[in-house]
């Protein structure tokens, strides 16, 4: 019999603080990819509403109710966080993604300036306000980026966590040096 110890995707790498910016791990308890089957979009929204008080988010948007969140992550796809996907069974392709992503939270007043060094999308508050969630690039890697109260959640593939953290730390340091 085996006993398996779990390691987080950012084990030993976080948190980091440079200047006014902090990068920390922010892994949700559970991530489920939700892809409504053909013609089941409305039913999925209804089920999400009933079970978690959420809907299926519009492109670029995220919804939250308590700890449960759902982020739009692409064409016909959303990530349901911290919530049981079972009520959606049969309505959508459900795939466990909990371990596939490293979730980093970047907070601080110039967080958008830091991400502006890696992300080719306008993330300033006016363009990327509360409830925003997109899929884009973090330098050379794909990322899901969502606005949270005091900064951003950045989800990258688990295997690339070290590179993502290294690149974020580089810009955090550079911004801190610029003052």
């Amino acid at each position, binding site marked *: *019999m*085996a*006993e*398996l*110890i*779990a*390691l*987080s*995707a950012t084990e030993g790498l976080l948190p980091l603080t440079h200047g006014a910016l902090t990068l920390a791990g922010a892994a949700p308890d559970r991530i489920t*990819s939700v*892809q409504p*089957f*053909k013609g089941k979009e409305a039913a999925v929204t209804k089920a999400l509403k009933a079970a978690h008080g959420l809907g299926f988010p519009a492109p670029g948007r995220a919804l939250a109710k308590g700890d449960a969140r759902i982020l739009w992550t692409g*064409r*016909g*796809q959303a990530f349901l966080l911290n919530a049981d996907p079972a009520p959606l069974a049969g309505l*959508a*392709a459900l*795939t*466990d*993604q*909990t*371990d*596939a*992503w490293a979730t980093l939270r970047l907070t601080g007043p110039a967080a958008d300036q830091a991400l*502006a*060094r890696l*992300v*080719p*999308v*306008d993330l*300033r508050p*006016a*363009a990327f306000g509360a409830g925003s969630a997109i899929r884009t690039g973090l*330098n*050379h*890697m794909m990322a899901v980026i969502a606005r949270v109260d005091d900064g951003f959640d950045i989800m990258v*593939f*688990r*295997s*690339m966590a*070290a*590179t*993502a953290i290294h*690149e974020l730390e*580089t*810009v955090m*340091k*550079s911004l*801190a*040096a*610029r003052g």
Partner: protein
Amino acid sequence: MRLQGKGLIDRTKPLAFRFDGTQYTGFAGDTLASALLANGVRLVGRSFKYHRPRGILTAGSEEPNALVEVLEAGGQQTPNTRATVQELYEGLAARSQNRFPSLKRDLLAVNDLMSPFFGAGFYYKTFMWPRAFWETIYEPAIRRAAGLGKLSGKHDEALYEKAFAFCDVLVIGSGPAGLMAALTAARAGAEVILAEEDSRMGGRLLSDAGEIDGQEGLAWASGVLAELRGLPNVRLMTRTTVTGAYDGGTLSALERVSHHLADPAGRPRECFWRIVAGRAVLAAGALERPIAFEDNDRPGIMLASAVRSYVNRWGVAPGRKVTIFANNDTARQTADVLVAAGVQVAAVIDSRADAPTTGDYRLYRGATIVGTQGRHGLEWISVRDANGERRVETDCLAVSGGWNPTVHLTCHMNGRPVWNPEIAAFVPAENAVPGLIPCGAAAGVFSTAGCLADGQRAALAALDALGRKAPTLALPKAEDGTYAIHPLWAVEGARRAWLDFANDVTVKDVKLAAQENFSSVEHMKRYTTQGMAPDQGKNSNVGALAVLADATGRAIPETGTTTFRPPFVPTSIAAMGAGGRAAGFAPQRFTTSHAASVERGAPMIEAGLWYRPSYFPRPGETNWRESCDREVQFVRERVGVCDVSTLGKIDIQGADAGRFLDLVYTNTFSTLKPGRVRYGLMLREDGHVMDDGTTACLGENHYLMTTTTAAAGLVMRHLEFVHQALHPDWDVRFISVTEQWAQFAVAGPRSRDLLNSILDEKLKPEDWPFMACGPVRVGGVAGRLFRISFSGEHAYEVAVPARYGAALFRDLVARAETMGGGAYGMEALNVLRIEKGLITHAEIHGRTTAFDIGAEKMISAKKDCIGKAAAARPGMIGPDRDQLVGLRPLSPGKAIGAGAHLFKQGEAAKRENDQGYVTSVCWSPTLDSHLGLAFLRNGRARHGETIRLVDHMRKTDVLCEVCDPVFLDPTGGRARG
């Protein structure tokens, strides 16, 4: 020398610096150029071809002559740094370049004496004989003589950065037009970025006197800047040069973040910006141009506007006795500035016969300069007018040949500027870059009042285009003078008159080009190299075009236009390539077992961005082969563990999933039952093999596809295409789960025993035949098990959520070791699969068809599939194809190399006889022989034949027997058993 009471320098902050080893002092606010001039240094560099002594021509980034190496501690240096842009800092050290042994005594100055033979394109006509001398003698000599500054040869370890920015209106340039544009846009509430190349905002207001709204221009600018600084919607960027205009409103800019600092203290050296602007206002001003006359390149000969800048902005008199040579009204302005500063004006030479008389200095009307003297700096000039020729003593000559609007960015999308005869200059064509609005001097408006009004006009146009209401601002009042110019490009009769200082191109060179029928402007440029030097033709393009027009008897617009390509200023590779250094070129992907593998001493090798262990050395093993042989042996005899998480895994669900798989695979998957796995072959639509792998049926309408590590992204994109573009109505959904699962191969006769020791429930053999799959639990964790084999042994792959990967790998390996097995790496994996004739991307190299690998029967005749039609083309099948075979050396100990070519025994190793090539090789400890996989012409029909294998690269020539590619266990009993 310094002028008292003048300049925007901080005299309370003296700064020591060195140039060519000599110590000097300047002040905060100086550039290297202004500080050198203040110290009386006029000779700063040597020209490119003739090694002529050169000084400082300009006060900006367009400088063609004053290029130096800026030295750093540790031996790093920046060549070709413009002394006119480099700000002074304490301890700055710079060195002149392109001279040997010293700036004053440069041996290659002999080239200047040879100039009659070194005219345009001379090298095309000589150095041809004897042929062997080109690479050995002529070219090295030319290379050594050419070039300017030196790279250190050391890695550039400095920090560089790239960034994105977004705004409604980007204003480029902060002179009167730019400030007015920025203010107008900012007050309307638009998000504004104001980018200025200089270290200070203000443009010509920093250098030229004049009132705006009843105050000094600079004071007005300060007021505007104070307001802009206070607005939350405005971002002011100094030391930032907009370098390129690209599609979709994207502009690039180079910020010199810490060039001006003795210690960057963690700041990047430069930042390369990608600015996405709703509209951009080009208010980059204009560049003064020189006039070509005899020996017009001596140190001390400067542009008039630069002379005014050195006097007013930096409080430096560039000479004791200054003369002025111009073809326009700025001659007077320059003289007035010098007189006001107390500098002697020796003479004003105005080429216009009707030049207005003013001021207390000698004016030569309708006059030109016909000669200059002074070896390392100007001493006197010869002036010719209607009364004859006379010599005027002078140590600084301020030249103005008129102004060229800074049209460069408007040319970046193939826009051609338009000739405006009124100002004898090119102005931007209408809408040359969508969304880029030129204004002020950049649009050919040369008065301050005109620039203010035009800046506002441009901003209003930008706001209007963005659908924003704009308040009407009262225009500040300012000088609204006229700009009268009578073109003078080159003084006639000169023996050597420079057009392109930086590349040593003279009027004669352009005329010679025309004489030899290189008469299109592009031919002239290429033949003479005019415009290809560090100043990018900024100082010479229009002049050279005018001389060419004259030489060919055409008007300027008829002759052609001058054009520019990005970048607007030379931009470092490091800035544009920021982040690429070291491991930054691509993300590094680490498996969950990475740390454990490294701990075991495994060399990690790159595989499709991942790192995978090559082999796991044990004490006493002296080379990789020993480790590899041992790992192969324990897999064949006991059990081995290998991390296979890097293989692509795609979760596929939906009512049409089976049908979808039938289309993308050559073989049928819709019949695959839950709990079963099938090997699949995937073709590109062009009929070649794209990838192979297994797909498991996890449940009804639920599959898990695996891809090779290298093709994971490619396959995902392909699936998306087939679904979205070809069959969007099919109910199928997919997502990558590569990262979700840590997956380990457990292979070998004792693999089941090993698994049984860790699984919560033991495996019942009857439930787990070859190619079965299903859920399992490991220590309470839900996992998946697949009975598949890439080694030919009885084997499994077990998967758990990635967080448990590290723990499971360590546990599996530890248990395997107690059973006489252990972890195996890529080398052993490769041997195991070669022994079994299993292919990887060494064989699926993009030219391989199903036919070539003997898998044509896998293309189901009962259904369509991607690539089926193209795979049936006559050239893709048949005996002319190279087909997969196995090779065994006749002497088993003879090593063979992948990449060797095959020939019939007794035939010469030459292309005409080529029979194929080797793709994979290994030493097989199992079969005690070297083995190879190869593609051989009509190979399946040639099993048993002896073939000659020649590897020129590794100097081997070996006879091999052609055989079936499956060397071991051809019936597959071991994997099934």
